[in-house]
């Protein structure tokens, strides 16, 4: 506020970063230079700004000199802007009355020539001070939010998210394309890490029957979860905190209002018919791992024998082929590793070996990958049981009068292999579920290079974007346990958001000036977040109404695309106004 009355009072604080800055720059001459820049009323120096003493110094400097804005000359704003901003707030200033001159990362460290680095630092400081003079206080806010969530996908991840969200008091709409819940997990006989169901021995209650059935029932019977089976998302609109979704149900169309969304749409298995050398769909005894799961499940009641598809015989030689459609550089499959296939193939091999100790079981692999706790023990146990691990690609699954022949090589011994096999199991990889791309457009969630939903930050994933989080295999292949963890983390994040009943509105956002807006809708078409809507206003001059752009503050992602596109400069990004950029450029050149 003080800024608007008369001149700005800018304080420039050098953080020498324990000598880092002074080691490569002539700080004395820089301080002298900055003193002569417009609006600068204080030039100070501290050794370390990022500890409590440094911030206390900053607070004191602001108070003693009645500063209304601060330029910190030191490190990168990418890391320290938040923290320094808090110190400003503590001193009674608006957090956005701060500009940082990145002299450490982008001047001292990459330039050894002290004289020239100092010259560059002068320009950077001039630009920072010029921009600071143009800063205005910014204010965020909060708007009301629906305490309801939409969960797309009813596999393990979707069910877990639904339960955790509903337990926290939120209404949940769980939409599942299939006629039943459970996803791919529902089709599995046993799961890692036990991969065993011993009704007569030490049952660990880890299998589908013992874990998944209660979970499915928990979802179906939950008073706050509404399950929409055989349904799909038809349309999606509204703004963060108050989304509307139209769901196509078998009985018609239902519209729901939600505050947040969990994408748990899973993945699909690569179709092995794309890789004709394995003979899937040609030879009956070439099956996928999921077919084998069904065979195992089918064999549990009755005679407890595994019957192969062609003639019902019990297979005595079984070959598992890994990386079918994964780690494929030919373009017929996927380039990525599907992460779970080594684990489940070993589990299935053990199950077969337990039932038929005389059977010969081979696993053909490129590399064994099991990024899970317990995988090593899982693998060693399999080896001790006599399962043969053969490193090398299988080139073909052929057939003659006597049955199947697996043709490949064993890289470790250098031998070509021709194994007469009774049953070939393909460990098929995963790719993005059908409809993922369409969903990404409707919900404005980007995809990664492999076609899965992209996590906002690859290192610290699961950050929500406008109340929308992708979990489980929808964000890339992962095991059951990790999918469930994803779901729990997502639900915890969204619960926290919804518990407040309010959506944060960013202070750094686009703002439209109704007076200047000509209603051309350029901004609407370039906005990646769907934040711009047209609204009708009274045009006093012409005594009529006209359409102007309005930015939904909670929906804005602060990219500035609209400000750039606006021909009448009616939309500005609050923290990157044209006059600020202009001042920076003029100071630089």
């Amino acid at each position, binding site marked *: 506020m003080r800024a608007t009355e008369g001149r700005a009072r800018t304080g420039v604080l050098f953080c020498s970063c324990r000598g880092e800055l002074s080691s490569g720059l002539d700080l004395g001459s820089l301080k002298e230079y900055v003193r002569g820049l417009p609006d600068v009323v204080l030039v100070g120096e501290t050794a370390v700004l990022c500890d409590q003493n440094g911030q206390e110094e900053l607070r004191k400097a602001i108070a003693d000199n009645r500063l209304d804005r601060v330029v910190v000359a030191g490190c990168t704003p990418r890391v320290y802007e938040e923290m320094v901003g808090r110190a400003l707030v503590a001193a009674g200033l608006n957090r956005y009355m701060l500009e940082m001159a990145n002299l450490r990362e982008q001047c001292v460290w990459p330039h050894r020539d002290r004289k020239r680095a100092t010259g560059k630092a002068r320009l950077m400081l001039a630009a920072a001070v010029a921009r600071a003079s143009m800063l205005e206080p910014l204010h965020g806010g909060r708007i009301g939010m629906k305490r309801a969530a939409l969960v797309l996908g009813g596999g393990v991840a979707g069910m877990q998210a639904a339960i955790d969200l509903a337990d926290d008091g939120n209404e949940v709409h769980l939409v599942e394309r299939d006629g039943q819940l459970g996803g791919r997990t529902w089709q599995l006989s046993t799961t890692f890490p036990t991969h065993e169901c011993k009704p007569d021995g030490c049952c660990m209650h880890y299998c589908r029957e013992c874990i998944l059935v209660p979970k499915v029932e928990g979802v179906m019977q939950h008073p706050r979860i509404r399950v929409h089976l055989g349904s799909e998302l038809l349309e999606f609109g509204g703004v963060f905190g108050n989304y509307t979704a139209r769901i196509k149900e078998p009985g018609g169309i239902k519209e729901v209002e939600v505050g947040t969304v969990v994408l748990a749409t899973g993945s699909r298995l690569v179709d092995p018919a794309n890789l004709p050398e394995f003979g899937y769909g040609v030879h009956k005894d070439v099956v996928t791992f999921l077919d084998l799961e069904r065979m195992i499940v089918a064999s549990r009641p009755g005679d407890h024998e595994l019957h192969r598809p062609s003639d019902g015989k019990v297979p005595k030689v079984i070959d598992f082929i890994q990386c079918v459609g994964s780690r494929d550089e030919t373009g017929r499959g996927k380039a990525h590793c599907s992460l779970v296939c080594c684990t489940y193939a070993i589990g299935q091999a053990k199950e077969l070996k337990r039932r038929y100790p005389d059977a010969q079981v081979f696993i053909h692999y490129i590399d064994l990958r099991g990024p899970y706790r317990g995988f090593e023990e899982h693998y060693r146990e399999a080896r001790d049981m006599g399962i043969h691990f053969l490193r090398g690609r299988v080139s073909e699954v052929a057939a003659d009068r006597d049955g199947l022949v697996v043709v490949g090589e064993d890289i470790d011994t250098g031998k070509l292999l021709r194994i007469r096999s009774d049953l070939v199991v393909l460990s098929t990889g995963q790719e993005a579920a059908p409809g993922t791309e369409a969903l990404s457009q409707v919900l404005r969630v980007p995809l990664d290079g492999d076609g899965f939903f992209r996590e906002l930050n690859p290192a610290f994933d699961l950050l929500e974007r406008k109340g929308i989080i992708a979990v489980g295999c929808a964000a890339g292949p992962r095991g059951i346990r990790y999918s469930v963890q994803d779901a729990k983390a997502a639900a915890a994040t969204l619960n926290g958001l919804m518990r407040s009943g309010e959506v944060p509105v960013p202070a750094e956002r686009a703002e439209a000036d109704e007076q200047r807006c000509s209603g051309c809708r350029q901004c609407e078409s370039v906005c990646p977040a769907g934040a711009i809507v047209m609204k009708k206003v009274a045009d006093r001059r012409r005594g009529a109404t006209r359409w102007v752009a309005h930015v939904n503050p909670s929906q804005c992602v602060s990219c500035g695309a609209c400000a750039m596109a606006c021909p009448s400069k009616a939309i500005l990004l609050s923290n990157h106004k044209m006059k600020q950029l202009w001042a920076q*450029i003029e100071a630089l050149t």
Partner: protein
Amino acid sequence: MTGFEPKIVGFLCNWCTYTGADLAGVSRFQYPPNFIPIRVMCSGAVDPMYVVKALVEGADGVLIGGCNPGDCHYQSGNYKARRRATILKQLLKDLGLDERRLWVRWISASEGKKFAETVTEFTEELRRLGPSRFREEWAL
């Protein structure tokens, strides 16, 4: 052109190239100090007027740095920047500016080395081209 040191203004997107430039510093990759950064939220928010302004004010070259194609934090900002830069280059050419003075490069947050190399190459190119006369020709 002995002794000529060009001045480069860079509009760097907050999420990729600016962070890549930080990484270049953290990794101590060296590049000529001819380059001065301006942080913007997205390469798609770089108004062609900023570029023209920098050139008219005396920059010898301008670099627009954004995320790699398909990697934009805002999904499509870098594509907008790319389309815009194509037109802008043509326009600048018509105004008598060598189009080699405007570079658009995609440098991710993890490509510190690439950032340093890009600035080094650009500086060398501008040293070869000599000072820009755009300022004298177009300054009002």
